[in-house]
């Protein structure tokens, strides 16, 4: 694959472009899905392809083709070159990353996962469904297990040449509980670069327990309440609020609520966030980023102070600084179909010293938010979204599920009102975070 990437780079440079990078990739996905407790589908797909990005006077052209056919690749090189020449010059583009050695990193590829056969994936998803459905109140279990393997070769015109193999293990379970006319679903998921058998049990159990917990339902009056954020809810929110907000391209264009906030206080003392592509078996871990910058840990928020944005070579060049290595080719298994964009690798929220039970105990009249799939408005830094799965907390006790309620808070207020940080973390949506308690958020309810 390196040879094909080398040839494509040479071909592009012969057309008079100034910079070029080529990603040659080969990936394979094995997925088994369960519907209502029965194995529904087993899939096997392979996806070789090549993505070519070229620059001419700072103007970027990108083309990709499926497969590794040499003629198709050369045709894609020509298209990318023609597109770059058609675009507008951009003096803000300085250069792609210099030649460097990819970081030596363990925990990207697991041979056991690579060798997993479809029968074994079926056995894992069956076990997951059995655990999630092990209660007479569970009427249906839908689940999936996916084992993926990817191999990439990345070459750029500055002499960077890197290869890496990556594996990914992803599981998901949704248990649906019924009691009379009441119905509720519990969901959980897990992703890692290695097969983790224990996660099959924890995800299944969690899906089942939350489905059953949600059968007991209540409404809530509109008002201000303390909110305990589960890592699932916090992970989804922070991936966009911090990952998207600290995107240097948005910041430089003045589109982010974090623009102009570098070295200013953003959150409480003790609120620490960093991005770490070197985490062993982390789903976003990588030896080099999507442009060939070697992976390294980067502190973003230190004791509440915003310390850094997320850069690629373009945004770093604009400020004459070094890229933070946050150019992403998308997901745990890289894709050749899109030009690289700035993204988190593994975002890590620092742990505190409160247990979940202590957070509950300290909450006399509040809400525990487990799941939301809402995005903050990154321009204003305001968040207003549905609490898809949340529970009432009264006198330190976890109560019934809250129906039809939303949470509203500005992100700076959220970071500044974190008053308890959990002592145990889990990964969700590319973010490793503990539970967090926010002292006050606006809840709109139907009560």
């Amino acid at each position, binding site marked *: 694959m390196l040879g094909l990437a080398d040839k494509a780079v040479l071909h592009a440079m012969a057309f008079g472009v100034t910079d070029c990078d080529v990603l040659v990739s080969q990936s394979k996905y094995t997925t088994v899905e369960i519907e209502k407790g029965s194995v529904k589908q087993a899939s096997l797909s392979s996806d070789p392809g090549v993505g070519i990005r070229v620059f001419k006077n700072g103007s970027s052209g990108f083309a990709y083709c499926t497969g590794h056919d040499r003629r198709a690749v050369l045709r894609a090189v020509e298209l990318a070159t023609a597109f770059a020449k058609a675009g507008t010059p951009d003096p803000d583009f300085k250069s792609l990353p210099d030649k460097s050695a990819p970081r030596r990193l363990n925990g990207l590829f697991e041979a056991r996962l690579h060798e997993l056969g479809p029968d074994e994936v079926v056995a894992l998803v069956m076990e997951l469904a059995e655990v999630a459905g092990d209660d007479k109140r569970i009427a249906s279990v839908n689940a999936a297990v996916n084992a993926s393997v990817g191999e990439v070769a990345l070459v750029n015109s500055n002499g960077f040449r890197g290869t890496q193999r990556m594996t990914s293990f992803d599981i998901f379970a949704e248990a649906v509980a019924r009691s009379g006319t009441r119905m509720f679903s519990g969901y959980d998921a897990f992703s890692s670069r290695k097969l983790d058998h224990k996660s099959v049990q924890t995800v299944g159990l969690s899906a089942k327990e939350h489905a059953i917990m949600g059968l007991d339902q209540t409404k809530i009056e509109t008002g201000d309440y303390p909110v305990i954020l589960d890592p699932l809810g916090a992970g989804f929110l922070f991936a966009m609020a911090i990952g998207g907000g600290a995107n240097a391209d948005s910041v430089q264009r003045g*589109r982010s609520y974090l623009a102009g906030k570098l070295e200013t206080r953003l959150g409480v003392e003790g609120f620490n966030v960093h991005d770490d592509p070197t985490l062993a078996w982390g789903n976003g871990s990588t030896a080099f980023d999507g442009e060939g910058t070697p992976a390294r840990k980067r502190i973003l928020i230190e004791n509440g102070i915003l310390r850094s944005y997320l850069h690629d070579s373009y945004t770093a060049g604009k400020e004459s600084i070094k890229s933070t290595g946050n150019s992403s080719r998308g997901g745990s298994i890289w894709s050749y179909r899109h030009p690289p964009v700035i993204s988190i690798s593994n975002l890590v929220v620092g742990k505190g010293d409160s247990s979940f039970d202590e957070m509950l105990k300290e909450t006399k009249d509040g809400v525990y938010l487990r799941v939301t799939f809402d995005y903050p408005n990154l321009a204003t830094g305001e968040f207003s979204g549905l609490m898809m799965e949340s529970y009432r907390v009264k006198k330190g006790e976890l109560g019934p599920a809250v129906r039809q309620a939303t949470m509203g808070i500005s992100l700076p207020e959220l970071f500044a009102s974190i008053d308890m940080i959990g002592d145990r973390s889990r990964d969700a949506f590319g973010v490793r975070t503990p539970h967090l308690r926010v002292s006050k958020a606006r809840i709109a309810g*139907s009560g």
Partner: protein
Amino acid sequence: LQDIAQKAIDRALKSGAEFADLRIESASGTNIVVMDGKTKTVTSQIESGCGIRAFIGGAWGFAATNTPTQSSVVAAAQSAAKMARVAQKKAKIKFAIEQQRAEVKFEKYACKEPPSEIPVEDKLSYALSQDRAMKDRDSRVSSTNSRYDDFEVKRVVANSFGTIITTYETWTLAACSAWARSEGIMQRGHASVGNVGGCELMKEEESQRLGQSAADQALRLLESKPVPAGKFTCVLDNKMTGMLAHEAFGHACEADAILAGASVLEGRIGQSVAAEGLSLVDDPTLERTFGYFGYDWEGIRAKRHVLIENGTLKGFLHNLESSSRMRIKPNGSSRAQTYQNTPIIRMSNTYIGPGDWKKDEVIEEVRRGMLIQGNQYGYVEPAKGQFMFKCDEAYEIKDGIVGQRYRDASLSGVILEVLKNVRSVGNDFKLGDPGYCGKGGQSARTTDGGPHICVDHVVVGGLA
């Protein structure tokens, strides 16, 4: 391609499949992103490949290859049959795929100006002009994004019933986002157009005003307040009514959610689920709309589906599997994003039908409430029965008069309650913005719409 398709289907059947189907695609496309007056990326895509399914006794096997040669496709067919056997061993729910009439058809969707015949310079010129239109609108517009997409695909859908549908499909889309800043406040506006058709779309008046529309929205929002949280009577505009139709009800009508035991609408056909007089329709047959298709991705002729008629639930959206298991005719609602994906049940153009109220009357009836305009995004969990969507703009309604402008309102509701709370339905029917609906890791082009409607007891989330 048809010969390759036939050989692959034969191989799947010889390998033990009771039913097999495939999608072979050859596609090309362009994507242009302009930011702040300069091109950010100009992308060319060249795709080809085949996805094939084999069915054995209640389970599916699927394999995909992006080397669509005869040997690779036939090998994928064998692989799909093997995967089906592996899955079938543990399938507890047994059923068969009901035989359907074989259809052989060649279709070319209407397209006056095929994107592949338009120079990239012309497409760039359009994207740059809309970007410039945003900046030129007002000095408070601080940052801009203009985007242009086109896609052309030749797709062969074939199955073991003998169906072979060959489709030439072209679609185009353009979108603008503007950020406006004033006195430390920043707001974003957006606008989009899309069609199944060619670059002629970019000459239409709405496409020519796209940048201006996005900039105007951002500028309007500069003069808005955070929305107050609480329960309100809400008047939804055409776009938000469409989102309600899609998110609040459409997804729960997808029969795969019913079979999975994950929709609150299971067992409710024939029951009252909405206010009297209200209708909800999914119609892929509206030519040129962004949700249009002639045959679905399983080779079934697309049809208009009435999901709710006069307040009563009438039916669901089906694919071959759900119709076989529920013993009704398939209604052509199965789509796959690409050959790399298996077809799943999707909406197309989803809307609430018109009523007989004038738009102004719908608003004048409200004593204390909100007018909700423009859709950003929404989502639903049919098993929890809850949905939410986020609007672009909200306005206070006091004694029938529209007043204070608000921003960042999110609306939430309960599937089985919201349509029963519809108080009035306007006669100003319109299909809204084109968009992409996400489900099961796949995206599908869709449109939604309807008239202005008034809904009681909507929970509005906000910061105030």
